[in-house]
């Protein structure tokens, strides 16, 4: 019990330090481009954090998260442009539309699993892309949809201010996922992931819990999509590229599927990796693929789990040594 309390204290201290460092980050980053990369890391952090809830914890192998993110971005942009709502309200609109669309796709798609779910959500992904191309008068087609930036008291917000907005969204997303994972919903999800047949005969309705979390994850991703559109002032059809799906999946796999912090670490690595090697242009996806393969080979459970394993090994080795010295 004492050991657990001690571990909990250390963990709490780690989290407090992490939050303080994240809050103080704009004080140390003076370069606008680096700040932009940090903001994009947080945006992708929100998306993969929620994708991880359904994929890592719920075992739903779908690829709809990026399209739901795009739905949030586009719908928010359309409402801001057509109905003249504020980009702040656009965040809510993005979330609501992503949740509604996820309900429409989730109702039939979550009745199947495995390759069928992947195919259905892939079809949905391209369906959404085709719709954006088709209604180019309101979506901007391949030219993209221009979306007004966030303002406060008539003044456009600067990047360091927007950093705090997306950091707050990331914090809410992580907290929400943490609460879900610890609740009976999280237990049901993990049970379904491990064995849906046993979960079913243990009284769990897999469909209900999967749909519930799929819609919840879509809402938060939709809000992130709305932020992305207003932050960049534009959202275009490149958002539907297959590379983006692979990158986001890579973030989850590299950081650690089914862990709370893993996907965010993954999003940091991939976002910065893509920028560092931006000169290589078309060869970048090959490099990302190589990184994913390397992680799968040497840390198949992701960097977080690998780190935990090594830490435990190191601790037990230290304990053995001190016991030997005592003897």
């Amino acid at each position, binding site marked *: 019990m004492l050991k657990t309390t001690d571990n909990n204290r250390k963990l709490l201290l780690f989290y407090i330090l992490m939050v303080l460092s994240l809050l103080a980050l704009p004080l140390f980053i003076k370069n606008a481009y680096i700040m932009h990369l940090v903001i994009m890391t947080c945006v992708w952090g929100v998306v993969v954090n929620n994708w991880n809830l359904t994929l890592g914890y719920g075992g739903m192998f779908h690829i709809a998260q990026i399209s739901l993110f795009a739905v949030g971005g586009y719908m928010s942009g359309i409402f801001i442009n057509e109905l003249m709502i504020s980009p702040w309200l656009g965040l809510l609109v993005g979330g609501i539309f992503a949740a509604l669309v996820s309900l429409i796709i989730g109702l039939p798609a979550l009745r199947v699993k495995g390759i069928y779910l992947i195919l259905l959500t892939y079809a949905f992904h391209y369906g959404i892309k085709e719709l954006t191309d088709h209604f180019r008068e309101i979506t901007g087609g391949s030219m993209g949809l221009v979306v007004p930036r966030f303002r406060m008291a008539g003044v456009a917000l600067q990047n360091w201010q927007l950093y705090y907005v997306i950091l707050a969204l990331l914090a809410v997303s992580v907290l929400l996922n943490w609460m879900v994972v610890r*609740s009976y919903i999280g*237990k049901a999800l993990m049970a379904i*992931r491990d*064995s849906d047949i*046993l979960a*079913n005969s*243990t*009284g769990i309705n897999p469909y209900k819990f999967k749909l519930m979390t799929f819609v919840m994850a879509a809402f938060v991703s939709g809000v992130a999509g709305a932020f992305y559109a207003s932050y960049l002032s534009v959202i275009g059809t490149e958002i539907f590229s297959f590379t983006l799906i692979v990158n986001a999946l890579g973030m989850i796999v590299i950081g650690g599927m089914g862990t709370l912090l893993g996907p965010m670490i993954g999003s940091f690595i991939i976002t910065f990796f893509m920028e560092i090697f931006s000169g290589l242009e078309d060869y970048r996806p090959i490099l990302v693929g190589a990184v994913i393969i390397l992680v799968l080979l040497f840390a198949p459970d992701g960097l977080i789990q690998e780190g935990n394993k090594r830490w435990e090994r190191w601790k037990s080795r230290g304990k053995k040594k001190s016991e030997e010295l005592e003897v």
Partner: protein
Amino acid sequence: MEDKKAILRVENASRLFGSLRAVDGLSFEVYEGEIFGIAGPNGSGKTTLMNIITQVIPPNSGHIFFHDKPIHKMPSHKICHEGIGRTFQNPTVFESLSILDNMIIGSTFGKNHNRLQSNMDKIKEVLDFVNLDKPLDRIAGKLLVNDKKKLMMAIALIAEPSLLILDEPCAGLNISEAKESIELIRKIGEKGITVMLIEHNMQVLMNISDRVMIMDAGKKLCMGPPSHVCTNELVIEKYLGKRTAKGVKDIAES
């Protein structure tokens, strides 16, 4: 036994896989508090029968009543809430979760609670009952086959079912583990829980069951007390063979 109340009534249930009739117009009753054994050759439809009772696979036709309530159109999870628990032939647990989490899941959802049920006294009591003496934080996937089977039984038991369906609980176990498993089934029966038991080992089945049903090609070949079943000509001819029938008869009579 005849004056006992039926807890489960299966009426003319059938299940087809293409042209194969896995369960073919089967009717029988299971009485409250009994241990009801089911045996038959491979492919006779035993596991399919369990699956259609628990709606893992819905029946194509027929009716199934539990406590006189129709359950043949109910989803699987609701059947659990009604009070039917089950285990599987292959040891199936929530592999990535701890023993404690496995038990919390059984306890929370088996009774359709909407918040986590982590009554440690109850969890320990059930784990003691199935004789699973492992640390609660042990990951279930790392347990040995016998321990996984015990945990699977504990997950089903913590939901307090009134009917427990066991699919070959002794499969893959060595002699001493199988004996322990038989003893556990007997203890479950003594607690007043009705047990439906599929078992290939006829000696085990005859030893433990109050009544036995022998299936062949999805149909009921014979049903009754063990001593009656093992002397049935059809059962000897189609399933037991003369030598096995004699050994089984001795056990049933003893």
